């Protein structure tokens, strides 16, 4: 079945005023609807610029010169797709006017003009999904960094956006919290998700596609197994997943290819096939 393209970038370049180098340099990709895309790269690779461009923050709110074309198709309802953006620093995400976590989650819904009962219902549902129910009446400034990051995600998910962009949303979470969040995001089926993260192991398990940025250039955009194998062969400066390293150490390639697996499921299958 042919996969329908939802977001298309055609030779897109971005340059900030007074900057010498391009922040994004000749980036092209086609992303299907409901795809989960992991975004990786070192500092100043262009990840945040890429996310802000997708969200429309560039050039609407941050001025920059853009060349090339970015096209986001309209969904079935013929309405412009809505976009949710989660910042790396969760405090930046918060309105600063809410006294309670519940107020903060409700902020976007109040702005959208929803009825009180609808707001109440949606806030409770999202709080339950993100395990925030017990802190709904606490102040957003008095909860832990990890809880704040979950709250930041809740403020975006509650408005049910078509496209979800998350810029390093697990930076203040403990390992268990990170794994939990990745699992939760993987279970979302109605959104196209772009997730910037350094958690390469979790990202390989989560993503349908990985894109690797370096100095504004898109080095790769493909399924995780191809990207990671390519990264190792070309010695790209990035971390490799533990599963990949383990498989490589044991010389366990996937059937019919010379590529090593990058997810636990595929590794298990490779080991199982070898046992047979």
């Amino acid at each position: 079945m042919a996969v329908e393209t939802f977001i298309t970038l055609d030779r897109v370049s971005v340059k900030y005023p007074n900057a010498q180098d391009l922040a994004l340099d000749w980036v092209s990709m086609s992303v299907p609807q409901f795809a989960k895309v992991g975004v990786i790269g070192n500092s100043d690779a262009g990840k945040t610029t890429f996310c802000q461009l997708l969200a429309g923050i560039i050039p609407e709110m941050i001025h920059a010169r853009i060349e090339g074309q970015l096209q986001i198709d309209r969904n079935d309802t013929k309405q412009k797709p809505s976009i949710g953006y989660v910042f790396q620093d969760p405090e930046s995400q918060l309105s600063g006017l809410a006294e309670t976590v519940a107020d903060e989650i409700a902020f976007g819904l109040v702005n959208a003009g929803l009825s009180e009962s609808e707001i109440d219902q949606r806030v409770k549902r999202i709080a339950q999904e993100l395990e925030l129910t017990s802190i709904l009446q606490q102040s957003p400034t008095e909860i832990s960094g990890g809880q704040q990051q979950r709250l930041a995600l809740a403020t975006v998910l509650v408005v049910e956006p078509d496209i979800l962009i998350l810029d390093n949303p697990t930076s203040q979470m403990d390992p268990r919290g990170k794994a939990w969040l990745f699992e939760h995001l993987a279970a979302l089926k109605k959104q196209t998700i772009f997730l910037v993260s350094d958690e390469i192991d979790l990202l390989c398990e989560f993503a349908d596609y990985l894109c690797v940025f370096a100095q504004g250039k898109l080095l790769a955009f493909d399924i995780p197994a191809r990207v990671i194998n390519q990264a190792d062969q070309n010695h790209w400066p990035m971390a490799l997943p533990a599963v990949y390293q383990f498989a490589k150490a044991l010389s366990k390639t996937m059937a019919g290819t010379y590529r090593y697996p990058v997810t636990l499921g595929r590794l298990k299958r490779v080991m199982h096939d070898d046992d047979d």
Partner: protein
Amino acid sequence: MLKKAPFSAGLVHKSSWTRHIDPGSKFLLMADTIAASMVFSSLSVNLGLILCLLMLNFSAHILHKSLVVLAFSLFLISTMLLIQGLFYAQNQTPIFTIGWLTFYQEGLQHAALLAGRILIITLSACLLMFTMTIGENTIYLEKLGLPFRYVYALMSVCYILPQMHANMRRIQLAQQARGVVGSGRLRQRFRAILPTLIPLIVMTLTRTINRSIALRLRGFESKQRQTPNWQYTYIFARGLHYLLFLGLLALLGGVVWL
């Protein structure tokens, strides 16, 4: 005071008389005291206003919080005293000398007046900020018909000092963890504050930019926004409004006619 607040049930208001006074009266009181300090350019009137506001803050059980905010504005006041004391255009009468620096009476008097006004603004703002919740103030102003973007700007200005203070504490704790001594003698404390200033300013600016982006993405400027239908009750609201508004008119009239 809080009759129905589905998302604010956890609010705890301090038990004091100020909980029965509406935000409008507190805004008007703020306007009155600031206008009075502008109209009467005398140190003794300003000192009297400061004392009155200190007593009001004390009776509202918020003096400790207010003093923390005041301490935060002391840096601004001390630079003002230094610069005006040395370089005020009408400086004529030397009052004392430290090394090769000569301070002048006119400059110090002028700086003291400006400092008094800063203290009056801060203390009256504290009375508004610390006796009301930010949400209550926001809803009140929205219900008056003020567009939400202006309400937000006003609230941001009112609450920027406490927020900067919280950020500074966070940076200081991080620096103490890295071995910077943040306690002890005044000199040591002052030296410890200096390295926090640049990260504090950068952090505040970055957060402000990111927050403005996040707010726009969250429909901050949406025309569909509904003012939350939460009810608060206050006592003497109308009477206080008339009284304080008349006081404000009298003060402004004084500027024109005197």
